[in-house]
């Protein structure tokens, strides 16, 4: 079976190389038409040959269509695989990778965004002040085509937890959609850079900001808010991609009518069944300021016609003020994209004690699980487990820790409930030591990548533990609502980050790379069997997708916390792009110039990043690499 698979993969690779050779000869002449025809032919042949040897685990075809060499959304496709079928850069030749061009974003804050490539243009959105640049890839040195400055309200910086980042834009139908820190969603004409519409949906005066990358599904721009540290009630909205009007809003707390829970709602577990749980699982009024913000990743399955999105931590962090399960925070919703109606929900961390937001990426896959074909979603979660969920029902198939976890003792697969370790429960005035993982989770927002060729999920993550003390907390609208003194320390082994290749079928790690600092960047994996990620020292690394062996690395000007992408340039060659520029929660000590003598600076993160200031300085630069 494996051999057949390898043969098929080789044939597929050959087809691709053939096409690429063709493309190189043809350039962008009339012959391109012939190239496409040939490609179709090759694809057919390859398909016929590969039929019996399809990868055992692969994303649903509708959510991850054939690679066109572009990169139109941060997660690459609706299945969020961050996998590129481009294979010009391989394990063998990646060592010769060199810089094609660079571009300074002019912003010295954390660059978490994924660049987009559409046609001949690369688009990047910066952290606050959220400038959108379009660079022309067809001309030497990729000069600027246009830039769009939305001029967000500077005061928004004061209510943005954990640096003023932006996680990227999304392209659809000739327009670039992105969010600004001060709560606007903006559609810009991709060709001219002229704004098409601008909808104001977030109110900074109650602490609401937007940092996430939107997702465009069926003519709707899906956007969620940030502010889980400010007592902001979480929501996700669908805006009409055409004119920007709000089509539906689904809150993460409150009465069923506002959470868009109706008769279609069929959660798998009893703990999520009941009327108005978004109200009854909170003390009176607490749900109005209870967080559950949708600031992370959204996936979409066109076959099931469901979107999947996580919800953030409940507020405040100090759990004494919110007895109860705090629905629907720190969980995942499956919703109908047309109406927003919830289909199912699963709560990763009921009554969260340690800021375990549930907003990470979910990779949609089809695989055989215990002898049965299942439509699953894989989620490396902040609380330390890799969850395998049946995405049609929300049933947990497995939940296995992918690093050191002592805040919980596993997941009860019968009830679906996380088994909390009572020794690590926090409350006011009590110092609890050595809780793993930290508030930033075993893995935070930094998205992983999945390769159907290896069946491995490449998870960039942290290896940190923390001491916590609940402190008195006072709700004042528009100010932080946290109530926790946190002091982070390095996890077991002393290394603060790791890059883990997770065998999805076996539910165990295939290999683990230790990194000195948390790996706060995303990952991308290619058909050339190369995985790219960046470190906070500024190294941009390429490792073998099968063994994890370091194949190539390049030191960029600042620490990397961005999301790498790869694309086919107008010249037909494969390129790899990454934004360098340290910041984010982990890098706030540098981008915000914090004082590490205070162990609680940056909500405790500065304590474990004391030496980052000696290693890197802020500064946003786009790096694009190619083979010579």
């Amino acid at each position, binding site marked *: 079976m494996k051999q057949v698979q390898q043969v098929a993969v080789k044939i597929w690779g050959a087809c691709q190389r053939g096409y690429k050779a063709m493309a190189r000869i043809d350039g962008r002449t009339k012959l391109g038409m012939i190239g496409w025809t040939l490609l179709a032919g090759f694809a057919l042949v390859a398909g016929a040959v590969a039929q019996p040897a399809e990868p055992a685990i692969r994303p649903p075809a509708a959510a991850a269509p054939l690679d066109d060499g572009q990169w139109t959304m941060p997660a690459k496709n609706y299945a969020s695989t961050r996998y590129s079928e481009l294979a010009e850069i391989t394990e063998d030749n990646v060592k010769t990778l060199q810089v094609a061009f660079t571009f300074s974003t002019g912003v010295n804050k954390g660059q978490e965004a994924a660049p987009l490539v559409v046609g001949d243009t690369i688009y990047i959105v910066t952290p606050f002040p959220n400038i959108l640049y379009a660079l022309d890839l067809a001309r030497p040195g990729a000069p600027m085509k246009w830039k769009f400055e939305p001029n967000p309200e*500077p*005061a*928004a*910086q*004061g*209510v*943005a*937890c*954990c640096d003023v980042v932006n996680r990227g834009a999304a392209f659809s139908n000739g327009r670039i959609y992105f969010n600004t820190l001060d709560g606007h969603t903006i559609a810009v004409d991709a060709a001219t850079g002229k704004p098409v519409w601008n909808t104001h949906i977030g109110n900074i005066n109650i602490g609401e900001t937007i940092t996430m990358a939107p997702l465009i599904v069926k003519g709707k721009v899906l956007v969620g808010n940030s502010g889980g*540290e400010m007592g902001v009630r979480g929501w996700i909205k669908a805006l009409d991609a055409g004119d920007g009007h709000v089509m539906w809003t689904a809150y993460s707390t409150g009465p069923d009518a506002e959470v868009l829970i109706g008769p279609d709602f069929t959660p798998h577990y009893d703990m999520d069944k009941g009327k108005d749980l978004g109200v009854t699982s909170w003390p009176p009024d607490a749900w109005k300021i209870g967080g559950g913000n949708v600031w992370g990743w959204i996936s979409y399955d066109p076959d099931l016609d469901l979107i999947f999105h996580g919800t953030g931590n409940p507020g405040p962090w100090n759990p004494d003020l919110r007895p109860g399960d705090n629905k629907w925070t720190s969980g995942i919703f499956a919703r109908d994209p047309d109406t927003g109606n919830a289909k199912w929900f699963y709560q990763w961390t009921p009554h969260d004690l340690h800021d375990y937001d549930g907003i990470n990426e979910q990779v949609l896959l089809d695989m055989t699980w215990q002898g049965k074909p299942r439509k699953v979603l894989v989620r490396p979660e902040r609380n330390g487990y890799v969850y395998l969920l049946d995405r049609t029902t929300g049933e947990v198939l497995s939940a296995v820790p992918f690093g050191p976890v002592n805040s919980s003792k596993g997941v009860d697969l019968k009830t679906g409930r996380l088994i909390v370790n009572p020794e690590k429960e926090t409350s006011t*005035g009590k*110092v609890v030591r050595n809780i793993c993982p930290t508030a930033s989770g075993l893995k935070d927002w930094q998205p992983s990548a999945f390769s159907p060729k290896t069946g491995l999920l490449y998870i960039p993550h942290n290896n940190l533990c923390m*001491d916590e*003390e609940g*402190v*008195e907390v*006072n709700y*004042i609208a*528009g*100010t*932080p*609502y*946290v109530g926790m*003194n946190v*002091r982070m320390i390095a996890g077991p082994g002393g290394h603060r980050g790791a890059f883990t290749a997770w065998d999805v079928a076996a539910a165990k790690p295939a290999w683990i790379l230790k990194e000195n600092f948390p790996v706060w960047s995303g990952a991308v994996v290619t058909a050339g069997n190369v995985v790219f990620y960046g470190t906070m020292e500024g190294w941009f690394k390429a490792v073998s997708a099968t063994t994890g062996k370091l194949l190539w690395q390049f030191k960029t000007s600042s620490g990397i916390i961005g999301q790498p992408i790869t694309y086919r340039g107008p010249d037909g060659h494969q390129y790899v792009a990454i934004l360098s520029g340290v910041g984010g929660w982990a890098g*706030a000590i540098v981008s*915000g*110039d*914090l*004082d*590490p*003598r*205070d*162990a*609680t*600076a*940056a*909500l405790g993160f*500065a304590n474990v990043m004391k030496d980052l200031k000696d290693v890197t300085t802020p500064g946003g630069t786009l790096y694009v690499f190619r083979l010579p």
Partner: protein
Amino acid sequence: MNRCLPLLLFAMLAIAGCQREERDTRPQSALGSGKQPTPVTVLTPGGERPSPSDNKAAAFEANAFHLSQGKRLFNWFNCSGCHANGGGGMGPALMDKKWIYGGAIESIHATIRDGRPNGMPSFRDRVPDDQIWELAAFVRSLSGNVPSSAAPGRDDDMMVHPSENRLPNAATLGKSP
């Protein structure tokens, strides 16, 4: 009798030590208004301006009661939410020697009262003026800029940094300038 006299004097002296300072819990108009405007820059065309001075500022900065109240309010009003315990987070660090909008107590008072454009909210009308002075004085203590005899000592919470009365002056870090 002769031997008793020094003893008596000593005892009186010791008793005098029990009187530490007045705890002004009501606004004291005798100290001045504390409301003079504070420029944010040192540049003054046409010759330098005398630096602002106010009895109120000085009275608050050297007063242990006001400093401790400032420390309490720093948490109550969620200053600590953004500035942590002085190291910063969403907002800048307060225990270093860098001041974006001026490090004099008058400037800090103005920053809290009126806010600043890049994210500092304005607490005008939300916090009584005297409490703003208390907060400003406490903020100064984080960088070792108030008398250590008046700065707060160690509290009962998790140790996040040496107590304010042991923090070195941020500008000199304990070394002579």
